[in-house]
Structure formats: structure tokens, C-alpha cells
């Protein structure tokens, strides 16, 4: 049981290695292995989620293995590079989200017929990387898995994408690589500052001084953050570094142009993983590192963070209104929704943070579902162009219905996960930044505007003759879409299923940062 988390990360990676030894001709064997591994990983994640102690705000299911020891790195203390895992109330839901989206993306990849083996290899590795990012309890481990997601996604886009895939993949790689570099600087600064501070040698962090140990362990950093505070100057500087990394990582305006391009070019399974999970990492970084370890830096720049969030909300929504391709529209919609999360984090309220985690999960599920439904539609109509679609309710009632559910969920309809997320995060942000939040609510109107517009053009209206003979959802698609819809509605109707896991952790963070 205690190893469930570690196994969750390990399984897809092992399966990826295993896939390498399956002959390429045995495509169905490859699919079978991949699906089994994803399913098992999901089950382990589920087991961890169920076994998660909701009353505790610490990292649970700890697992640590030393990978490398640099002896005498700091005087006589060695520098220990570890693979360490653990999950708290913030990461646990995201791990489960990874499992669900990973499995569904794997099912979705049935429509891949070229270089099948490689596709599943990279997909499994990407899943392992995503699990690893959320499950890691060590800065090094985190960064390791973050880079793993970067490389794997690059290959997934650049090999199985559409015509412009090379360009989009390179853009993706450069942007996120850049974000990683900035993030690495932030990590080093964070670990150094805390080490210096813990040693009590100096109140100011400066480069010439080397502490005589360095801890990369996230729980330890958090516990140190509970004992003392970094200097304001250090917090401010580090927070800005993290914010910059997250802005690029999470495709916030104006560093966003890589996301629509990537989504437009990638295949549907990859899009589900990117939109559903990968695009949550940036805000997870902010929640994990900025909020917990740099509270004063966040407080200092909360207005900036909130403002950037609102800009992304409104800008993303307005640009989404002008998009002609479903995938680009979803990309901008996701930018807009992530702006809400940024606004919520800036609020520094327990409710807002809870709403932020809710929104990450909800938007993950809904974005993946939107991509799935749109992909299923495009499988049949061969187009993602909104203006080339129309009247699909007639020939594809089930897929259209699911698309409608996903759209309404994104709009924030009560009874689905989007609403409770929006409610909680606006509750937090109205308490702290009423004007920013008031502008942010415009996004709630705009999202209805662009999604319903696209819906109306796609599924409503007179049926086009070329779409008369389309076949509706196959059983495998039924299953995938039903799982998503069920989860979205479950969270919407009974949010405690998610809220109880998140609550204690968020509450303890808020208590510590005095929000």
C-alpha cells in the first residue's frame, strides 16, 4: 500500500521499456501492454487516493532512493541526489487525474496506425513523467520528470502530428525548455536560500557564500518554511523567477503562442495529455513552491499575479471567440481557465487555493473530454474547422451530446465540476481583489459566448449532406466519454469526493501563510 505511489510512477516507465522488446508488427500486443500498464497505474493511483489520510497535511506514501551521492560537496557534508516520492492534498488529485487522462489517451490512440510501437513507447514515458512530476517529493526528482515530459511530448508532437508538426514541436520544446531553465534557476536559488537561512549564517543570500549542506527534499523545505522565513528580498526575487517560469510553462499571455500551435498539430491522444495534465504542471509549481515556500514573495506580487491571471482570462476568451479551428479554440479556452487559477492563487485564501486545485482537476477532465469529443467528431468528418461542420446532432447524437456536456461543463454549469471550482476560486479572489475578480467574471460570460457559438455552428443547424452516413460512437468511445462525464458530474454533485482530500492541506498552507 505504501508503495502504491511509487508503483504508479514506475509501472508506465517499465511498460515503456517492455514495449521496446515487443516486435513492431505485433501492434495489438503493444496496445495491450500499454493499456494494461495504464490501467494498473490508474488502479494504484486510485488505491493511493482512497488510502490517502484526509486528516493530515503532510506528504504521504513516502518513498526515497538515493541515486547519487557527491561526497564532500559542502565541506564534509555530501550532496545527495534522490528519487523521492510522496503526495499531499494538492498533488494527490492531480495524480489521479493523470491516471484517468493517461488511460483514456491510451485508449484513444487506437486510431494511431503509423509507428504504433514508438507512439505507445513515448506515450507511456510521458505518462510516467507526468505521474513523476506530481508525485515527486524532491526538487531533483521533480525536475527530472519535468524534463521527461518535455522530451516525450516533443516526440509525440513531431512524429504523429499534422503538417506543421515539426514547427509546433520545436516551438513547444523551446518555450518549455526556456521555462525549465528559469525554473532550474529558481530551484537552485530556493534550495540555496533555505540552506543558508537554515544555517543561520547570514540573513542575505549571496553567491559567494556556500552553505555546508543543501537539502533538495520538498517536505524538508516545507518544514523549514514553517520554522523561519526567508528574507523579503530573497523571496521577492525567487518569486519573480518562479512566476516567469510559470508564465511560460503555463502559456499565459503573452507567452502563450506555443500552446495553440501545439494543440493544433498534435494528435488527439497527445492533446488530451497536454491539455488535460501537462498544462496543469505550471500552476502546480506555483502552488507547490511559490505559495508554500515563498509566501511573502507571493504576497508582495499578488496584485501582479492576479492581474496577469485576469489578462489571460479575458484575452484568452476573446481570442477564442475569433478562432476557426476547434483545437485552437480549446487551447485558448484552457488559457482562459488557467487564468482563473492564477487569480485564485493570488488571492492567498484557503478557499481560493481549494478552488484552484478544483479548477486544475476540473479543467483537466473537461479539456481532455473536449479534445476527445472533438477528435471523435473529426475522425468522422475529417475536419476541425468550425465552419465546415454543422448539424452533427443528427448523425452523431451521442458524440454531439458529450461535446455539449463538455462545453457546458467548461462554461461552469452547476452540477458539473467546473462550477464548484469557479465558485470557490471566485470566493477567494473576491475577498482579496474585488475589482480584478469582477473583471474576471466577464470571462464567465465570454466562455459561454465562444463555446456556445462553436457548439451552435458544429452540432446545430441543418445537417450537411456529406455527413449523412456518419456512424456514431463505438463502444470504446462510449466507455471513455462516459468515464469523463461521470467524473465531471460526480465532482459537481458531490464535490467532497475531491474537496476532503484537498481541504486539510490547503487549510494548513493557508494557516501557515496567514491567509
Amino acid at each position, binding site marked *: 500500500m505504501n508503495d502504491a505511489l511509487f508503483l504508479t510512477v514506475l509501472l508506465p516507465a517499465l511498460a515503456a521499456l517492455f514495449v521496446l522488446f515487443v516486435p513492431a508488427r505485433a501492434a495489438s500486443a503493444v496496445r495491450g501492454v500499454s493499456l494494461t500498464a495504464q490501467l494498473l497505474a490508474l488502479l494504484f493511483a486510485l488505491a493511493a487516493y482512497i488510502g490517502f489520510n484526509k486528516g493530515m497535511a503532510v506528504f504521504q506514501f513516502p518513498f526515497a532512493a538515493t541515486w547519487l551521492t557527491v561526497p564532500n560537496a559542502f565541506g564534509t557534508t555530501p550532496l545527495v541526489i534522490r528519487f523521492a516520492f510522496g503526495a499531499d492534498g494538492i498533488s494527490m488529485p492531480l495524480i489521479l487525474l493523470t491516471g484517468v487522462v493517461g488511460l483514456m489517451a491510451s485508449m484513444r490512440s487506437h486510431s494511431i496506425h503509423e509507428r504504433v510501437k514508438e507512439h505507445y513507447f513515448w506515450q507511456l514515458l510521458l505518462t510516467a513523467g507526468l505521474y513523476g512530476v506530481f508525485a515527486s517529493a524532491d526538487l531533483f526528482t521533480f525536475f527530472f520528470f519535468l524534463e521527461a515530459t518535455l522530451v516525450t511530448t516533443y516526440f509525440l508532437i513531431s512524429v504523429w502530428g499534422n503538417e506543421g508538426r515539426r514547427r509546433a514541436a520545436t516551438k513547444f520544446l523551446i518555450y518549455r525548455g526556456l521555462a525549465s531553465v528559469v525554473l532550474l534557476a529558481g530551484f537552485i536559488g530556493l534550495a540555496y536560500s533555505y540552506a543558508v537561512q537554515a544555517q543561520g549564517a547570514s540573513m542575505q543570500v549571496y553567491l559567494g557564500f556556500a552553505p555546508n549542506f543543501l537539502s533538495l527534499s520538498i517536505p524538508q523545505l516545507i518544514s523549514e518554511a514553517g520554522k523561519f522565513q526567508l528574507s523579503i528580498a530573497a523571496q521577492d526575487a525567487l518569486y519573480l523567477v518562479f512566476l516567469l517560469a510559470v508564465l511560460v510553462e503555463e502559456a499565459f499571455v503573452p507567452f502563450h503562442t506555443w500552446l495553440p500551435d501545439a494543440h493544433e498539430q498534435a494528435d488527439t491522444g497527445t492533446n488530451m495529455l497536454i491539455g488535460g495534465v501537462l498544462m496543469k504542471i505550471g500552476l502546480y509549481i506555483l502552488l507547490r513552491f511559490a505559495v508554500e515556500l515563498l509566501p511573502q514573495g507571493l504576497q508582495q506580487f499578488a496584485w501582479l499575479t492576479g492581474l496577469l491571471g485576469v489578462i489571460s482570462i479575458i484575452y484568452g476568451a476573446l481570442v477564442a471567440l475569433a478562432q476557426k479551428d476547434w483545437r485552437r479554440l480549446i487551447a485558448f479556452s484552457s488559457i482562459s481557465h488557467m487564468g482563473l487559477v492564477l487569480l485564485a492563487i493570488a488571492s492567498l485564501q484557503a478557499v481560493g487555493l481549494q478552488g484552484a486545485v478544483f479548477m486544475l482537476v476540473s479543467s483537466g477532465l473537461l479539456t481532455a473530454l473536449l479534445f476527445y469529443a472533438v477528435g471523435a467528431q473529426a475522425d468522422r468528418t475529417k475536419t476541425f474547422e468550425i465552419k465546415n461542420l454543422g448539424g452533427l446532432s443528427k448523425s452523431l447524437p451521442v458524440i454531439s451530446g458529450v461535446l455539449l456536456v463538455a462545453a457546458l461543463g467548461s462554461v461552469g454549469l452547476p452540477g458539473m465540476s467546473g462550477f464548484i471550482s469557479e465558485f470557490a476560486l471566485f470566493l477567494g479572489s473576491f475577498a482579496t481583489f474585488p475589482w480584478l475578480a469582477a473583471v474576471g467574471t466577464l470571462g464567465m460570460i465570454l466562455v459561454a459566448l465562444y463555446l*456556445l457559438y462553436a457548439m451552435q455552428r458544429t452540432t*446545430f443547424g441543418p445537417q450537411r449532406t456529406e455527413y449523412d452516413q456518419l456512424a456514431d460512437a463505438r463502444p470504446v468511445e462510449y466507455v471513455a466519454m462516459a468515464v469523463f462525464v461521470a467524473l465531471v458530474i460526480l465532482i459537481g454533485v458531490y464535490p467532497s469526493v475531491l474537496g476532503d482530500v484537498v481541504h486539510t492541506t490547503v487549510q494548513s498552507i493557508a494557516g501557515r501563510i496567514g491567509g
Partner: protein
Amino acid sequence: MTGLAWLVPVLPLAAYVLLLIGGRRLAEGAVTSIAVLAVAASFVISLAIMIQVALHGPQPAVTFPWLVLGSATISFGFEVTSLNAMMLVMVSFVSALVLLFSRGYMRGDARFARFYQYLSLFVFAMLGLVITSNLLEFYIFWELVGVCSYLLVGFWYFKPEAAAAAKKAFIVTRIGDVGLFVGMILLYLGFHTMNFDTIFYGQAVSSPYTMAHGAPALLFAAHALTGPGIHALPYGLAPAAFVTLTALLVFVGAVGKSAQFPLHVWLPDAMEGPTPVSALIHAATMVAAGVYLVARMFPLFQASPAASDVVAIVGGFTAILAALIGLTQHDIKRVIAYSTVSQLGYMMLALGVGAYVSGIFHLMTHAFFKALLFLTAGSVIHAVETQDLFEMGGLRKLMPLTNAAFLAGALALSGIPPFAGFWSKDEILSAAFSSGNYVLYAVGLIAAFCTAFYIFRVYFLTFGGEYKGDRHPHEGGLAMTIPLTALAVMATVAGFFNTPWAPWIANFLQDRGAVGYDPAVNWGLMVVSAVVGLAGIGLAYYAYGAPGRAQRMAQKSGFLYTLSFNKFYFDELYDRIVTRPIRAIAEALGFVDRWIIDGLVRLVSGGVYTGGAGLRYGNTGQIQTYGLVTLFGVAVLLIIAAGIGGVL
């Protein structure tokens, strides 16, 4: 019985689930039976609850925790007060009849079961909205009502107008919803609770102190101004300002849902949906929700005179505006739709001047006669297959039952005694008069005149004269006639529930003390409103009794006619100042995004690429050149090293 109140909304939900699972395999009759029986059972339970409330007073709210949010727990639950007991009865009654009527109207539709499925969900959402004890839960059902109306208005999705109307309805009401959403959040920030009672009275008061408790406004004001909430009021707002702000935000929600000016534009377009849907939306569910919201939040509005004034003025303005537009429309359903907007304006007017009972009473009577009017219109449309008034005529002889029913509804709407509308509308007008709002009274009176004119215009054009079409109109089946009869009876007699000499409803709603403002009986005003109504009918008879006269009248009124016919150009105005600018901004931003922001990115990457390609030419392949450069490099390094005195 009140313990079973949760069954009232759950039964239609069960019907929805049942139809969702097995709807396609069931025959039309079975589908109808499931849905109608579920709602009818709800009606029976509601009736029992209402009787119990009348006998024993309201019951305490039943709640259970739903979500722990921050440091507070949000509970869900339901409660039965006199207000929502009455609403439950009214909603379930009208809904059951509309569901039954749809059996005939939708016969043979390819998605018959789907239609009933949506209707059941719609009814569930409305009943849930009524019964809830908590603002967040209220909002959830409120949005669900909106979505159901979206689905139902766009039911014939293959009609582009229907799809556009559904979208418009959703987005326009969404604007109001956001106002309510913000109001709800502010209320929560101020009072740290979502429960209505706790918001109004500072504590979760149990049965004797629900809505109908004596002088709630004072209690609320005391709570808001001096109670524990004062420390929690956000942004350092003064209590009075805070109450006004939240009340106005809540009212924005009601404006959207109840199609009040300036968000009234969606309701007439929503006529593109099937007629039973219109009946349901206009009578019992969607638009009633807005009025119900204001009534439910009445203490909040009572505590803020400014907000109340806004409610009254918006209501009055909407009443006259919609009535004027209704004068000239050609589409039978549109006329009735504008009449709904207008009547909802009356209700808002009533609530705004503090006439709580009158507003709710009018909501009830209106539900009966408006459902009746829509269903008769549906019956007519079903028979003649057109909605244009000028292609009908002479149906009095061909469809006698429909004729009688429509006449009852029209008389009720016009406020002719003793029909239902007379009593409620008169109460509103006398409340406006006796509260000193003479302008609003005058506006209401003019609107009443217009109302009588336009509805009898419809009557004379539809049922009078000779039939102009080439079909053979006849009455619908039992499924259509039974609801018509039942509603016609109600439209005729419902007014007697609350006559000046027997104010049953007023007593029921205020069984624990007066709420708001109850005008004294004023026989003079009653005569005036009856005369105005009759005058409107007389003018309609004069204009449409002889051919060509109406046209001359229209020509004489000139541009006023054009203005009214084009609905005062509100659609065009919004198109110019809202829709198109937003779309233009979106397109411009899309352009900026693609060519300027991404263009900058491409410029940077292109610059790097070009720079790299240029530098490549430095790579000549001439090893001696490399060596020479290296030599100079080493020399420079050495000079530097010598200059700074070594590098170690």
C-alpha cells in the same frame, strides 16, 4: 408531510433518469405517462404540503453538509415555507398540465422521448430551485433551469433560428446570472453563510421564524447594520451600501431570468422552441424564477430602499415597454411573449413598491392564464400550422373549446372582473398608487390599457372574422383539451383566492405577520382599472371589427408604429453596441495574437536563425584561418592576463 418535501423535485428527476435510460425504447404513451404521473404525484404532495403549512405553519429546514470550503461548511437542504409551498403547488400544477398537453402537440416527433426527458429535468430544476433553503443550491438549480431552457428552446436544433434563439437565451440570461453569482459571493463574504435564514436573520432560525415572520425587514436591517455581520462586511463597505450593492446584483440575476429591461430581448426569440416549452418557460418555470428570487430575497430588498426603487422602476418601465411592442407584432406567440415580459414587469413593480403579496399573487394568476394562453396558441398553431396572425381568423366556430379557453385567458390578462388577472393586477396598481408612486401607477394603467388592446387584437384576428388559410383546423385530442379546460377554469376563478373580502393567500403568506406593504382596499381604483381594461378591449374591437381600419390607424401613428413593430430596435441596438464590437475586438485580438504577438515570436526565432545562418559563413573550412583567429585570441587573453597580473 413536509418531511417528504424532497420527493417533490426528486420525482421528476426520477422520470428524467428513467427516460434517459429507457426513453428510446418506450412508446409515446408510456413516455408521457411516466413524466406526467411523476409531476402529478409531485403536485399531489405539494398540495398536501401546502395544506399542512396552512394548518401548522412552516417547517424547519432539513440540511446536510455538502462541501467543506475554507473554514466553513456549505450545507445543502430544503425547507418548506408558505412562499415555496405555494410555488410548489403552482409549478407542479402548471407543469403537469403542460406535460400532458405536449402529448398531443409533439405527437410523432422523432425525439419525443428526449423532449419529455428535457421537460422532466426542467421541472425538476424549477422545483428544486423553489424548495431549496440555501443560496448556493438555489443558484445551482437556477443555472440548471437556464440550461434546460437552452436545450428546449433549441430542441428543433436543425432550425437555424431555434439554435440562434437558444444561444441568445443562454447568453443573455448568463449576463444576469453572473450578477447573481457575484451577489451571492458578496453575501457569503459578508455573512459567511449561504442559508437564506442566516443571511436575513443572523442565525439559522427554525420554523416559526422563516420567511413569513413578522417584520423581517427590520430584523434584517438590524442584523446587517449592527449584528455580527458588520465586522465581516468586505471592502470596508458601509452596511447600507453593502446591502444595496448585493440587492442590486441579485436583481441583475432576476432581470436576466425574468427578461426585464434591458435583458428582455431573449424571451420573444425563445418562441422558436416548441409551444409547450414556451408555456412552461413563460408561466411556471424559467421567468417565474426571477420573480421568485426577488420574493425570496425580499428582506434584502426591504433593507435597501434604493434597490427597491430600482426594482420598481425597472419593472414599471418593462411593463409599458413590452406592452407597447406587443401592440403591433404579427406572430401570435410573440405577442403573448411580450405580454409575459410586461406582466413580469408588473410583478417586479409590485415587489419594488413593497407589495409582496400582490407580486406573488400576480405570479400565480399569471402562471395560470399565461399557460392557458400559450397552450391555446399552441392548439391554434397545431391546427393551422402557422404563427402569423394575419393568416388565421374565424376559428371561433371551428375550434369552440379553444376559443372559449383563449377568451378566458385574454379576459384574465386584460384584468376584467371577475377573471383572475383583475384581482392581482388591481392589487399591484393600487399598491403603486397608495405607496405614493403616482408615476408608476400611471405607467401601469397605460400598460394595462395596451395589454387589453393587444390581447384582444390577437383574439379578434385569430378567432374573429373568416378563416384565411386552406387547412381544416379542428380541436386537438383529449391530451390537449383537458389541460386547456383545467387552466381555463383556474384563469377564471383563481382571483377569488385573494379577494379584498377574503384574502386567503395574503393570510397564508403572512400567517406570522405582515410582510412588506399591503394596500388597503380602494374601490375607486378597482373601477378605474376595470374600465381601462374594457376600454382597451373596445378599441381592439373598433380597430379589428371592420377590415382596413387597423391599417389606417397604424398609418396615422406613423413612426410610433414602426418603432413598436421593430421592438424599439433593441436587437439592432445591442447588435451594434455589444455583439458586433465584441466580435470585432475578438477578431482584432485574434489578428494581433496571430500576427503581432506570434509575429514577434517568429521575428525573434527568425532573427536567431538568420544570425546563425550568417555566422555559419565564418566557418570557412580554412584551418589556417581558424588557427590565426585562435592565435589572436590567445594573444588577447595573454595580454589581459598580463594586465591584471595573472589569472590564478
